[in-house]
């Protein structure tokens, strides 16, 4: 459990970190909370030559309302989000999902930016940012870019983030009135990652669904937007029959994973069950 030799540097600001990334190129890796990176390094699955510690950059650690969105700094910890009161009015799934991540130690150190950039296919945040139509703000030598959450996750541990960029902010639009959200997950018992996780955000009017945004994680090689589920809800009366038949499409089109915790068939079944539970809780 001893990593390969590496150099350690600490960045005091985002710009300094970008400069360091440019300087060290391929050899460099950003260290935020470290709860995915350090175990991988200890197993020598990951052997960066230089670690750039961005964990103490205070300008990355915040949660605040800015106009018509909530801005979450990439350095906000899971625990910051779990205990924040910024997520009323339809974004309840943020603190809810945060509270279901790992254990206390992980939540105290791990950051939302680190989790999104790492893009573990079973992580919780990807589903939440997709379902809430968030924008991922990244910064590199050429300045700032905004990437829609739906475009951010490009594959197994792969994102749209370039090697010299830092994920600085998650911008979550304030939902319409009469919107509720929920996150439900079935945990892998040891890692507490999602075997399946569903984030659902439902806007309703008089019992009818006017808008639905549903995303799944843990099911396939990356988190995805469950469009078929959404379409089966929109404009319908939100009774349990509708929800159940919509949720049945939760794994449609996904390359469903199979392991000794859950076969493809069981995972598909769980995807429907947990989609149904998240949607019901968001109604």
């Amino acid at each position, binding site marked *: *459990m*001893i990593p390969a030799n590496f150099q350690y540097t600490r960045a005091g600001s985002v710009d300094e970190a970008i400069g360091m990334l440019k300087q060290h190129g391929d050899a460099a890796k950003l260290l935020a909370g470290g709860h995915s990176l350090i175990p991988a390094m200890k*197993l020598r699955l990951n052997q960066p030559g230089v670690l750039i510690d961005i964990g103490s950059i205070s300008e990355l650690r915040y949660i605040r309302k800015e106009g018509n969105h909530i801005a979450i700094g990439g350095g906000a910890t899971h625990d910051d989000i779990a205990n924040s009161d910024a997520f009323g009015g339809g974004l309840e799934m943020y603190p809810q999902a945060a509270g279901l991540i790992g254990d206390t130690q992980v939540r105290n150190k791990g950051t939302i930016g680190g989790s999104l950039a790492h893009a573990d296919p079973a992580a919780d945040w990807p589903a939440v940012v997709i379902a809430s139509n968030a924008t991922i703000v990244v910064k590199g030598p050429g300045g700032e870019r905004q990437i829609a959450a739906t475009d951010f996750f490009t594959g197994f541990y792969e994102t749209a983030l370039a090697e010299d960029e830092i994920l600085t902010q998650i911008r979550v639009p304030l939902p319409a009135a009469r919107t509720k959200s929920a996150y439900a997950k079935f945990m892998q018992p*040891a*890692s507490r990652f999602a075997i399946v996780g569903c984030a659902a955000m439902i806007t309703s009017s008089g019992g009818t669904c006017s808008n639905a945004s549903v995303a799944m994680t843990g099911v396939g090689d990356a988190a995805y937007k469950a469009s078929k589920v959404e379409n089966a809800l929109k404009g319908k009366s939100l009774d349990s029959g509708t929800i159940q038949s919509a949720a049945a499409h939760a794994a449609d089109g996904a390359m469903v994973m199979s392991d*000794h915790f859950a076969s493809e068939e*069981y995972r598909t079944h769980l995807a429907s*069950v947990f989609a149904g539970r998240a949607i019901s809780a968001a109604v």
Partner: protein
Amino acid sequence: MIRCKTSKEIGGMGHSLKRKEDARFLAGKGNYVDDIKLPGMLYMDIVRSPYAYAKIKNIDASEALKIPGVVAVVTGKDLEKYNLHWMPTLMSDTQMVLPTDTVMYQAQEVAAVIATDRYTARDGKEAVRVDYEPMKPIIDPYKSLDADAPVLRTDKEGKTDNHIWHWEAGDKEKTDKLFAEAEVVVKEQMHIPRIHVSSIETCGCVADYHKVDNHLTMYMTTQAPHAIRTVIALVAGHVGLTEEKVRVISPDIGGGFGGKVPVYPGYVIAIAVSFLTGKPVKWIEDRSENLQADSFARDYHITAEMAGTKDGKILGTRFKILADHGYTDASANPSKFPTGLFSIGTGSYDYDTSFMEADAVYTNKPPGGVAYRCSFRVTEAVHAIERITDRFALEIGKDPAQLRMENFIKKEDFPWKSPTGWEYDSGDYHAGLKLAMDTIGYDELRKEQAEKRAKGELMGIGISTFTEIVGAGPSKDFDILGIKMFDSAEIRVHPTGKAIARFGTKSQGQGHETTYAQIIAEELGIPAENIQVEEGDTDTAPYGLGTYASRSTPTAGAAAAVAARKLRDKARKIAAYLLEVSEDDLEWEPGKFSVKGAPEKSKTIQEIVFAAYTNHPQGMEAGFEATHYYDPPNLTFPSGAYICVVDIDNETAEIKVRRFVAIDDCGNIINPMIVQGQVHGGLTQGLAPAMYEELIYDEEGNILNGTFMDYLVPTAVESPSWETGHTVTPSPHHPIGAKGVGESPTVGAPPAIANAIVDALSHLGVTHMEIPITPFKVWKVLKEKGVVE
């Protein structure tokens, strides 16, 4: 109710004294092997095989040796020069220390890198290039017995198959006849999965050989320091390390659970390197090495059968076992039976016919078979008998609690001779189960279950009423390499009336520093807080066989009581001399002798001890010391009645243990709080294989869950709120009437949980489920039975 004979100040048996050792543990001041740092110490790391079965074509250490700080890379060929490349296992099998040509399981030791610091050693390990030629491994133990299966242990001359041993107990002919004629026969195939002790402290050592005086001090994480010293002398005597030149020190241990009884190759390599370099060598395993390579536990495939009458009388049992020992039989089992004490598997029930047989095989998996918090295969036996008893109840449609009550051995029938030859010392099984049923509200739960079933909800109630067998053991049945399984205590009382007591056992969290002091306090009246307990140094402690299999209280605890009684006899003589009366005129109460009829004339134990050094009677040996080696006349037979309630989500198949009541009977209790702590820990380790733990291998012999990211060791997070209680049925042959308790909950919990889950599904036609019972397995059943789509 526990009645104490001593005052709280004396703190003898029955007092919930806070653990003396906890102050240093809670303050982070424990002294573990990895805390030991010696001048000039070298560090060792081990290159391990990525393959389950492969020829080693070449080991190239040149790149590793170029790294500054890498001192040496040791291979099997290097050890072969000193004939140290093989070692015996505790089961008289053989095991490679380092291979010269073939690796037999994934994570096997291939070479050792020695460096001036731990980090460099790890880098050196990465740089060693090993060229393998992989071969097709045998992973399935049943396939290992196929006629055309390749012979794995080609190192054994004349070996023509993969069979290790065959074992039988009971009466085959009588049993087969009974089963052929019985009204009801039930049968289930069950696997007790391969699991790992996963102690929080991994294994490790510091081998410190001094050339000048030809002396080895071995600091190591061992549960049995004296036995290890003897083993080292037997293995390394030919290079001059005879037993008086070896000192084994086992400092504080962060959990053992049976996994720290065996000798692992790393220890031997460290000794060899220290011997050759003259420098201390430290080796500490990392977490994954510990999980993947150190001795596993369990891995028994059992065909269990029960015969009985339609109205519920149990008449007989039959068990057939296939034991998968992996590459070598590296069990840590000191009995003369290769299946340990599996023959306790006739259970708590009054019948006279049973037959058991077992065969063991080699496969390309890590070696082992350690007794994980278990008296040598008792966990496997109890699972088989308690599961098949429930299966019998289900078959004839009788409530499983009622069936047990009707078949229990009666309190007045003890000592009771079992069909496989054990003499159960004492028990009151009816009282235990009744208390468990009253505590949990059994009848109401059955009503609730019926109502829930009518609504399609899944709820189950599971019972386990087990008999344990602990305290190895009587010298007729138990030895390690010929050394009998006694244990020892030495008590030295200082002139001021305070004492030091030393033992051949070794605590790994059991609280010996407190409980042994309480036993001596009970017998001598010296306050427990004034008794210092020491273990783990072979230079100072009397010879003993160590701590495992719940044997410390039954053996060393008994030795402490008997040694203290020897001192009390001496105290009586001194008191008679001091008070100028005859010994018969004296009366003992904890802490003092007084003259019968004249209680004002008395001498305290402290006054008596002082006199032993300052004013002892002429002709009497001065001082106040005693030693005793206790060879138990029989084992002790603790028992328990456990009831578990589970709820199963009929959509997701998630299983929730709603309640768990554990009533234990471990005879007289030394420290109720420590017993409760033992039971809580043991129940959690029983929950583990029931619902979570199994080491899983693919067909190529790759471990699929070799880290804690995938292998869950349950903690308080997963545990229900354990509800504990006890009945007290003293052991009639033990000096203080105590029995062991450490492993009862680990042994008793898995079948209670499995029975509860099967009970929740039994109306669907489910008769058995293999542990660990995961949501995935339950879902498959729910799907097959049409409960989920």
